[in-house]
């Protein structure tokens, strides 16, 4: 009887471990379906930072000044995955490419925070993964004529802090917005 109880306990623990692993998988989006776009893009950003690399990078951030803020922002984050493709001409990616990502975000754990659709400026969608009251993950899907960006952050993240990060804390602005505005002016 004792052996049986121990066995059942071990089985329950293992099942819990499997479920936890499954949940982490849910939080992380599978972005490999976009890899084929790299060949068409003139500029590609592909960042895969898992928990181990996060810890390594975090160790290099100092506990003073601006880097302290970055360090506190990334504390608890288990991974950051970014794919951005910039194309020379329109129509280099298909709606199926976006749908592959969007379908993963339709799961019950994800909530769409905002959806901005414009013929001129393209689509911008922000999704949150909620763990009760806390944000457990973030996904941003941005698509316009010549750019496709997917950002996936696994773990708790302060969105307001992250939005304020550009141009601060030694994180220079990329100026993509102004680049786009200039393009629209022409």
């Amino acid at each position, binding site marked *: 009887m004792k*052996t*049986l109880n121990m*066995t*059942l306990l*071990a*089985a329950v623990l*293992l*099942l819990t*471990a*499997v479920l936890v*692993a*499954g949940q*982490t*998988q849910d939080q992380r989006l599978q972005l490999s379906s976009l890899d084929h776009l790299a060949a068409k893009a003139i*500029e*590609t*950003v*592909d*960042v*895969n*930072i*898992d*928990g*181990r*690399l*996060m810890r*390594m*990078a975090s*160790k*290099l951030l100092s506990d003073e000044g601006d880097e302290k803020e*970055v360090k506190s922002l*990334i504390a608890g984050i288990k*991974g*950051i995955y*970014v794919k*951005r493709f*910039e194309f020379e001409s329109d129509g280099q990616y298909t709606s199926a490419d976006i749908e592959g990502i969007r379908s993963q975000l339709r799961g019950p754990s994800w909530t769409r925070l*905002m959806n*901005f659709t414009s013929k001129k*400026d393209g689509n*911008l969608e*922000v999704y949150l993964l909620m763990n009760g009251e806390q944000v457990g993950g*973030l996904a*941003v899907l*941005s698509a316009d004529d010549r750019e496709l*960006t997917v*950002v996936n*952050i696994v773990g708790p993240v302060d*969105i307001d802090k*992250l*939005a304020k*990060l*550009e141009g601060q804390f*030694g*994180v*220079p*602005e*990329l100026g*993509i*917005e102004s680049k786009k505005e200039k393009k629209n002016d022409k």
Partner: protein
Amino acid sequence: MNDDYLWDKSGEPDPEIQELEEILAPLRYQPKPLELPNNFPRRNYFPVLAIAATVLIALLAAGIWLRVKKQETEPPQEAKSVVPSVYKEPEIVKKNTDLSPKPVIRKRTRKKSINQREAVEAKEQLMLALRVASEKLKLAQRRTQGPPPNQIKNQHKIG
């Protein structure tokens, strides 16, 4: 007398053999059906099955874990975009004035150096990722908070 009796019971038997046969006769094999007792204890296979199931689940979990781990530890591809680097890479290699061979220390230093380089690369990648994420969120905020263009056009000067 011949020995055939010993082989196939033919021919004339030896009296000594006959006597021995008679003595051993009660011990002769007598066919009868196997009788099992009614209260024969049946073996309980449940613990064995439970252990087998646990091992199976453990293997499955290990497989999933390894797969997740493998996906997570995929080497990050380098970004093609030119990003202004804020962080200055620390000087890792120090001049070694001692020329005597110290293989163990050198090995450790090399490993440390590789880890350091990996950490620096990870930090740069992290900054790049945060930059992209931040920029997109800021853009989202601007688009949700900013007034629609028509609203500005329709405003009239007062007075």
